[in-house]
């Protein structure tokens, strides 16, 4: 009995460290230990095979195992409960309740034009109440996920003959091909990869961009991937899949260790391509890179990696906040190096321009589109 408590305690400690090991996993863990015995190595493997579910879990598992089973005396250690996640539901529109109740009596038209102005404002110049408003506007944004033709066929009025459906139809009439059933290609979501530069020079935009990413991920959780780039690369897709935007943003920012750090775009892009992109995340996807192109590292590395990315991806869109400003010239070393390998350079500084980015994502995900040289 004591050992079981110890094992369950270990599983709880793991959960505390952020791993998702629910009761079914813990049960499996106990069952596994029963099979292999209580030998230290056996318990290690039993736990690793049943409680982990991701390579990222492994270092955490190893550390927790070490601290839990490392010294035999530590089993009396108090085990905290996992903190309940605050159930915040962000107000979606300002109409009922919410901080700007005072505005409710203003004419609707004025509010609408305010919203329109806000949509065009540079995200970095917003004050606190404006940011609050922007959050709500982002939360109601419903970007339509892009799609592509699929391999599979579905019944349709026009298209190729479907032998299966026609035969079924024939059976009903005792073998006469009375009605021909047809089928055509169905559609599948096109994968979208958002790479968000969270280095110091982009810090004014990072929050809004991650919120935008959250909205996109929520619309198409399976076909969207989000990574942050800075001094290192972090995958935040998982964190952003939570429904509540505040909780999602909090989880994402916890996961990112290098907010407002330097930029080594080329290197982090290489890490992304090595670990994820090449394996298939970027393959055939529309990739949007949100960055100002301030590259501290070697620009040739960035050019190399952009070339590689372009070869893998369906289309590469560079959303550059500075491109939305008057008189902008693409002179930063990073931009100059990357330009030849980008399908489209767009601004990404306001809500309006984010919608614009999205319309490009949809357009470039169609067969036959893309490949056009970029213009500003």
């Amino acid at each position, binding site marked *: 009995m004591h050992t079981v408590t110890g094992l369950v305690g270990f599983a709880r400690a793991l959960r505390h460290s952020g791993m998702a090991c629910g009761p*079914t996993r813990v049960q*499996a863990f106990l069952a596994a230990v029963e099979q*292999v015995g209580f030998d230290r190595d056996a318990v290690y493997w039993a736990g*690793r*095979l049943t409680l982990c579910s991701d390579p990222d879990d*492994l270092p955490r598992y190893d550390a927790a195992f070490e601290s839990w089973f490392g010294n035999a005396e530590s089993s009396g250690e108090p085990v905290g409960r996992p903190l309940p996640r605050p159930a915040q539901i962000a107000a979606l529109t300002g109409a009922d309740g919410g901080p700007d109740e005072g505005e409710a009596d203003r004419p609707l038209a004025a509010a609408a034009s305010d919203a329109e102005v806000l949509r065009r404002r540079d995200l970095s110049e917003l004050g606190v109440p404006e940011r609050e408003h922007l959050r709500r506007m982002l939360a109601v944004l419903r970007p339509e996920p892009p799609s592509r033709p*699929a391999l599979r066929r579905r019944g349709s009025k026009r298209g190729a003959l479907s032998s299966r459906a026609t035969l079924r139809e024939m059976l009903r009439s005792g073998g006469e091909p009375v009605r021909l059933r047809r089928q055509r290609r169905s559609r599948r979501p096109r994968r979208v990869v958002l790479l968000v530069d969270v280095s110091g020079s982009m810090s004014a935009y990072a929050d809004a961009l991650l919120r935008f990413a959250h909205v996109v991920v929520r619309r198409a959780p399976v076909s969207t991937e989000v990574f942050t780039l800075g001094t290192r690369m972090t995958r935040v897709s998982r964190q952003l899949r939570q429904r509540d935007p505040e909780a999602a943003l909090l989880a994402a920012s916890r996961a990112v260790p290098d907010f407002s750090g330097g930029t080594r775009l080329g290197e982090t892009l290489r890490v992304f391509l*090595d670990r994820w992109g090449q394996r298939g995340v970027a393959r055939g996807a529309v990739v949007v890179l949100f960055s100002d192109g301030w590259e501290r590292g070697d620009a040739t590395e960035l050019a190399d990696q952009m070339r590689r990315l372009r070869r893998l991806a369906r289309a590469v869109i560079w959303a550059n906040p500075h491109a939305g400003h008057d008189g902008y010239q693409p002179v930063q070393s990073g931009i100059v190096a990357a330009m030849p390998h980008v399908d489209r350079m767009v601004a990404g500084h306001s809500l309006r321009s984010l919608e614009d980015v999205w319309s490009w994502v949809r357009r470039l995900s169609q067969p036959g589109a893309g490949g056009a040289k970029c213009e500003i």
Partner: protein
Amino acid sequence: MAVDDAFDLNSPAEVAKALDDTGYLPDDGIATAAFLAMRMRRPLLCEGEPGTGKTALAQALATALGVDLIRLQCHEGIDAAQALYDWDFPRQLLHLRTLEAAAGGELDAESAESSLYTRRFLLARPLLRALQESPCVLLVDEIDRADDEFEAFLLEVLSEYAVTIPEFGVVSAAQPPIVVLTSNRTREVHDALKRRCLYHWLEHPDLEREVAILRRRLPGLDERLAEQVAATVQRMRQMDLLKPPGVAEALDWAQALQALGQDELDTETAATTLGAVLKYREDAERVRAAGVLTAER
């Protein structure tokens, strides 16, 4: 415990021994994973770098246990008809015409239809075959390439080890097959499936084990050559390559060198046979520039 009866392996060490006999050298993790998959009747989800022996594990398990390996290769757009079962339409149609001719135009639609949906016209695809022919090892290869709807469908089959064919009835496995799923992480496998599976992350083998694997898989391979190949491949893996070589590439390379009659890895032969181990021009250039091929000779 039907599983115990069929596969009389009572500890991870015995599993390791059985795999070893087939030429697959498992480490503790792999042996424990395979043992638990058999004992707990859970699918085993293997992830890891390409070339670490995920697929080979399933093959070795089948050989070690003396059962068939049934393989389902996943791809985008794979559906139940390709994975589970399908009806043989052309033969059904012929059958229908024959019935019609025999009955002289007086065909009872109901009995005609029921005669069409019998085992005769059922084409068993890998999943159904695995249920019918169990005990066996079912390899669901590269699950990450399938769509997530397919994953959900698979989950259902794997949790019941039974399928319902509407026109036919329930087919269930007398004894659950041993299921090995592999993923290259091009897409994250759904949590629901992961929860159902044991999870094992395979690493590249260390130098000693890789030498042993090379020697085991290529009988007659010179020991010194095996060591040199393994050491060089290990050093390549430490470099930032687009595609670090896996065990399969190390084997290819050793085989290529063996075929050339080499008993030692010299710079010249290494350079000419580099294509067996590195699959990108950039990687080959980087390795040459770093002098990996020339050092330690």
